[in-house]
């Protein structure tokens, strides 16, 4: 057992830290500045990462990355988190689209799509969930019908973040209604620059719209934009979903740590660390914060070293989301009415945290996954 980084990992970390010290992301634009200002900040940040060779270290060198190990990639996200950097504008392309193409794409597709993902020239979004297909994603209804050399797609997607800026959409649609639901799906790259795709912002409880609805009415997708073969969409989608949590998780954990440190500092200022109830709650959050990090690293390094993924993957997101909610709730107690005032950072974190236990796999579904796949418990058969 060794809970330190190797010399190589430390060198990687130090190189990145030095670069970040010279290339600060700058202040986050205020909420009043609007969504476009936020996105411009993230796009500019990706440009700087790209110019510095830091846009996607985990990508193989042949595609413009550094061929970094999984541990190095985790360190990368931890350090970006520490620097309070925004997520790059094309995070979905960098973390989901690109890696999915590397596994399932043709050589032509990789050549055509990977470079502009890396540079941020072409922004990607994800068209998976639908109003009637959330946790039960395989039941999705968006339909694609062959029309000559193209496919015509009609349907509705929801929770599509960044759609208003995106050029390409990773779209999963039904191409065969005769077979079992997850066998009749195909994964497409849909051009967002067509009238047939309408983007409508989805206002969330915090007030702004990170996400969108997509209304797709006979949108046209060339056959060359099928990824992984017709009817293979479910497998390709799983590759995308698996990548969803891996990298971002490490940055989110650091953000939680920073939030907790801010809560502790605020509590100290107000003399609340001497209050037994606050001290107890803060200490418990600290324990959770540290064990989240340990579990995440254990999950990553055990898989890397011993091949077998352990239970940690499903446990980490569950524990992180619950802890972030507790931390932001405690923050409200510590900070007072400022945390209930519209437009403040604390109130944003409080309200935004409600989404953590829903996005990327609801806690209820994660518990099912742990119970069924880790503990081997049977699933209840529900009469149709």
């Amino acid at each position, binding site marked *: 057992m060794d809970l330190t980084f190797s010399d190589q990992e430390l060198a990687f970390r130090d190189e990145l830290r030095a670069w970040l010290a010279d290339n600060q992301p700058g202040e986050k634009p205020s909420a009043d500045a609007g969504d476009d200002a936020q996105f411009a900040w993230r796009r500019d940040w990706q440009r700087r990462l790209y110019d510095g060779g830091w846009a996607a270290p985990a990508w193989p060198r042949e595609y413009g990355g550094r061929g970094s190990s999984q541990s190095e990639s985790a360190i990368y996200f931890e350090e970006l988190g520490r620097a309070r950097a925004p997520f790059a504008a094309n995070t979905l392309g960098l973390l989901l689209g690109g890696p999915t193409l590397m596994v399932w794409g043709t050589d032509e597709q990789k050549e055509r799509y990977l470079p502009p993902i890396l540079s941020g020239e072409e922004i990607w979004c994800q068209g998976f969930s639908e109003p009637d297909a959330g946790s039960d994603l395989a039941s999705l209804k968006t339909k694609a019908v062959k029309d000559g050399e193209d496919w015509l797609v009609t349907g509705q997607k929801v929770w599509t973040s960044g759609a208003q800026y995106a050029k390409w959409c990773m779209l999963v649609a039904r191409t065969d209604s005769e077979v079992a639901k997850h066998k009749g799906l195909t994964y497409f790259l849909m051009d967002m620059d067509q009238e047939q795709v309408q983007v409508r912002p989805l206002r969330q409880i915090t007030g702004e719209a990170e996400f969108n609805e997509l209304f797709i009415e006979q949108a046209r997708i060339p056959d060359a934009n099928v990824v992984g073969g017709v009817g293979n969409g479910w497998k390709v989608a799983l590759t995308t979903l698996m990548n969803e949590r891996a990298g971002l998780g490490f940055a989110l954990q650091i953000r939680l740590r920073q939030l907790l440190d801010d809560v502790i500092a605020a509590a100290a200022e107000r003399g609340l660390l001497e209050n037994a109830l606050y*001290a107890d709650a803060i200490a418990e959050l600290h324990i959770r914060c540290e064990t989240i990090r340990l579990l995440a690293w254990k999950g990553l390094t055990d898989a890397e070293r011993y091949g077998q993924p352990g239970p940690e993957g499903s446990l980490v997101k569950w524990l992180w989301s619950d802890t972030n909610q507790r931390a932001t709730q405690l923050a409200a107690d510590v900070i007072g009415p400022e945390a209930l005032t519209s437009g403040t950072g604390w109130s944003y974190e409080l309200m935004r945290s409600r989404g953590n236990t829903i996005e990327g796999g609801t806690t209820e579904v994660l518990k099912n996954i742990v119970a069924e796949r880790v503990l081997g418990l*049977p699933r209840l058969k529900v009469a149709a």
Partner: protein
Amino acid sequence: MDFGLSDDQRDIQRTARDLLGERATFARVRATIESHPPPGSSDEALWRELCELGWPGIAIAEQYGGQGLGTIELSILCEELGRTVAPVPFLASAMAACVIEQAGSQEQRERWLPGLASGETIGALASASDGTAELVIGGAQAGVIVLVEDDGSGRVLSAEQAEVTPFAAIDPTRSAARVSAPDGAGEALEDGCPGLGRALVAVSAELVGVSERALEMTVEYVKDRKQFGTPVGAYQAVSHRCAQMLLDTEKARSATAQAAWSADANPDGLAEAAAMAKAAASDAGREVTQGAIQMHGGIGFTWEADVHWLYKRAQIDSALLGGAGRHRARLAQILAERVAASATA
């Protein structure tokens, strides 16, 4: 980073599991308890065998007759013993040895450690308040007792120097006693009681083992028990509770692993790591064993089923050397000091 055990460590774990799997089955535990009425039962034959294998001295330095291995090896044995609730005074002696070895003078070490390493002497370690410790595991059999006060001061006493009042604790697999040390009795140990961190790792590791076994038994039961035409484990109320039990156990496991590693490789981090481990493991022990009884339904509430031994062991262990709340308070202090230090930096 590597959370895995070395080959040697895996061997220790495998050997321990095989041995206890044969010699400390629940049936044997029950037989020991029934043939040795309270206060406190002991499987003498098993203890002798463990002594012959060098278990009590696993983490005691070779110069005192121990095997000179580390806290990770010690925690492996503690975890295996927790899984089986074996009726032997291993934990008590190991905890006492941890403190005597690091907080004792050379003379104190030479006097007590060889006997603890060979198993000839049973040790005990407990938190005391003004010289009185209300819950001393191993206290009734101990030849040497270490008492640690809240202010960090500690004393080592021979059994004769203390007033030892055995009582029947709810966990009959180990003896329990109230120990009172008159003013001036015994000898002082180094202030701050170095070695306490390792002792906390030991009891935390035992709690992880108890939790892990309780979860295993529960999963097996709910897969098998059928009601309304289905295994009860298929119901989400049951399966989600089991998932929570896994989360609690893994949280405790990783905190304890970090503390065990810190004891040997990162001593500066041990105080914080040990407090985190004891808090997480104490909570896990209680929550998981309570969940185990609940998920076993009516059977879980019977003396005949084996779940309650784990529940009772968890209750005792979570109280040893301070419960979860005490250790969270300690952590809060550490965090407060850190804030104050960075303010003046």
